[in-house]
């Protein structure tokens, strides 16, 4: 391969890893509190639509991003109402959220198809760093959202595993009854982290519609929300693992995309299968390895103080 091709694959890997990274990090935060949110795909779609339409009307990509995160948080609270207060099965509630939100984004988004927005996140050139030969091209030629997402990884790792609020967060997922006894408001905590995690999924959607491929297309997430959920599971609910997984996903998607652009004889449909096949394989390999640490003990179990 030529150097230019290599570079485009590496850059593509970073660009394509960002949305799944953001969404999966949000998922980890929520899961650590004991809530399994399968609505990520739908939240991302609403985030993508909201981000784009608000950025269009406000002429500010930042306002769009903020709106996408708020929309994500609102959907997260809806999910929380069902899974936490009404103690619904979290799998069904997540599926309901994905269908509802996917439909909502398609319904509201119809007039926005094909509209071109002037307000998007463009490549952010850092002084000196971006001009470095090769290193500059590999690491410092992205939009701000890419940098922010990657900075979120060490921050969240520290927050979850080394800080006091992180300890409280994990206690709600590992042993809610004990946490409650210690005076931690498990219900409120679960609501909070479901909302925050969903806000990140909303941001992941906005990344797609405001930075990666500016514009709104129905179903533009193409299963990335589900891949984020898979990443979260096979990373063992750990931000560092999520980072590795998203880079792998980004790399495979980028290779598939470049191979297509380079005009290989392989059908684009077969190439596009690669990320999904990879996700299944990664689940197979890592789940067997993760046997000892399967994640938060009370993940997906509604908390009821009276223990019904």
């Amino acid at each position, binding site marked *: 391969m030529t150097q230019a091709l290599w570079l485009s694959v590496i850059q593509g890997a970073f660009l394509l890893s960002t949305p799944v990274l953001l969404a999966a990090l949000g998922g980890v935060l929520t899961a650590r509190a004991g809530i399994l949110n399968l609505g990520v795909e739908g939240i991302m779609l609403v985030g993508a639509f909201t981000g784009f339409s608000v950025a269009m009307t406000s002429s500010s990509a930042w306002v769009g991003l903020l709106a996408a995160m708020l929309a994500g948080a609102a959907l997260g609270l809806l999910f929380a109402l069902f899974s936490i207060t009404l103690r619904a099965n979290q799998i069904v509630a997540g599926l309901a959220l994905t269908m509802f939100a996917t439909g909502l984004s398609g*319904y509201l988004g119809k007039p926005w198809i094909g509209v071109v927005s002037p307000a998007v996140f463009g490549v952010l050139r850092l002084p000196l760093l971006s001009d470095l030969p090769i290193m500059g091209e590999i690491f410092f030629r992205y939009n701000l959202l890419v940098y922010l997402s990657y900075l979120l990884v060490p921050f969240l790792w520290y927050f979850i595993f080394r800080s006091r609020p992180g300890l409280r967060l994990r206690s709600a997922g590992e042993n809610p009854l004990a946490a409650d006894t210690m005076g931690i408001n498990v219900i409120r905590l679960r609501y909070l982290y479901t909302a925050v995690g969903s806000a990140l999924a909303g941001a992941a959607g906005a990344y797609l519609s405001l930075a990666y491929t500016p514009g709104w297309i129905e179903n533009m997430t193409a299963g990335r929300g589900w891949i984020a959920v898979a990443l979260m599971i096979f990373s063992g609910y750990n931000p560092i693992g999520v980072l590795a997984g998203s880079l792998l996903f980004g790399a495979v998607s980028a290779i598939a995309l470049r191979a297509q652009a380079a005009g290989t004889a392989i059908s684009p449909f077969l190439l596009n*299968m690669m990320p999904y096949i990879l996700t299944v394989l990664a689940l197979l390999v890592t789940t067997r390895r993760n046997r000892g640490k399967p994640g938060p003990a009370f993940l997906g179990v509604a908390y009821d103080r009276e223990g019904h």
Partner: protein
Amino acid sequence: MKLRWERRLDVPKWLLVVAPAAAVLGALLLGAMLMLATGTDPVKVYGVMLKYSFGSKNDLAETGVKMIPLLLCSLGVGMAMRMQLWNVGAEGQFYAGAIAAAWLPLFHPDLPAGIMLPGMFALGLLGGGIWALLAAIPRAYWGIDEVITTLMFNYIAVLGVAYLATGPWQDQNGNRSFPASPLFVETAHLPTFGDTRMHLGLIFGLVAAVILALVLSRTSWGYQIRVIGESPKAAKYAGMQVARNILLVMFLSGGLAGLAGMTEVSGIVHRIQPEFSAGYGFSAIIVAALARGNPLATVLVSFLFGALIVGGFALQTVNMSSKVVLMLQGAILFAVLASDFFVHYRVHFARRPRAIQPVNQSADRKALS
């Protein structure tokens, strides 16, 4: 005043019927409010949907046509649901069954009529079943969550159909802008009723529903499935083969979805083309949830949802996204979950009981930490 709830000791029978019905009505009302809030006339939307799904004999037949794959998929999803298995991969199994069934007329068009349709039937069942096993085996032996894997296999199957239709199976003499396989020979078409598009698949679905209802309620195997679903540990102690039953149930579940794919290609599409499912596999999850995995209730619910899907297509004629239907379906599923809560809990208003206040709460907290 504060809302309080307590678990009902026994659930009245009528509530099990009234609750899902109220859920559907409530969701449609909520949808109407959402449309009003976003500047769409809900009366017009629901009017169009009703007219196109029940308006005339042909419209009604069209609703039946959509009901067939929905019924077969929903029976499969509902059967897995009985065992607490979440087969959200019916969409992919539908396509896998369709591909397997289509292979016969495309590559062996000269087979006698007596072999063609039964052969396609068997291949559809096998194709969907094997596709489901790909997710069921990791679930049964290594405990890998079936929700994610069945979903991933959906995407792979959708792309697989697109690959075949635009690649090796493409009709070289066909329209280049609408890539598809050649049309099946006449012997591979399911017979239709009268001059409508309604086809024999309806009988497959109804018979499958009756058989499933009998098997689940009258055989010891049906009982085993319920026990495994409700308490895998108890099932193991009782000597039931949990892993083997997961495989069997998922195979049958996928097989029914695959059969749906077979009836759709053989009865309606008559060839393989990209994305010919109207999301039957996804709607099936809601149908199964509404029917609570009861096969006979599934027949009724899938008829109603068939109408919903026909109505969704009709919305495109008034320049609206057919995704409105997906939104309504999501709302219905939410409403079902909410109604479940009211089925299991009695809710009443109560004055907040006067709790005995600790003299100094913060001092207690400090002492604990």
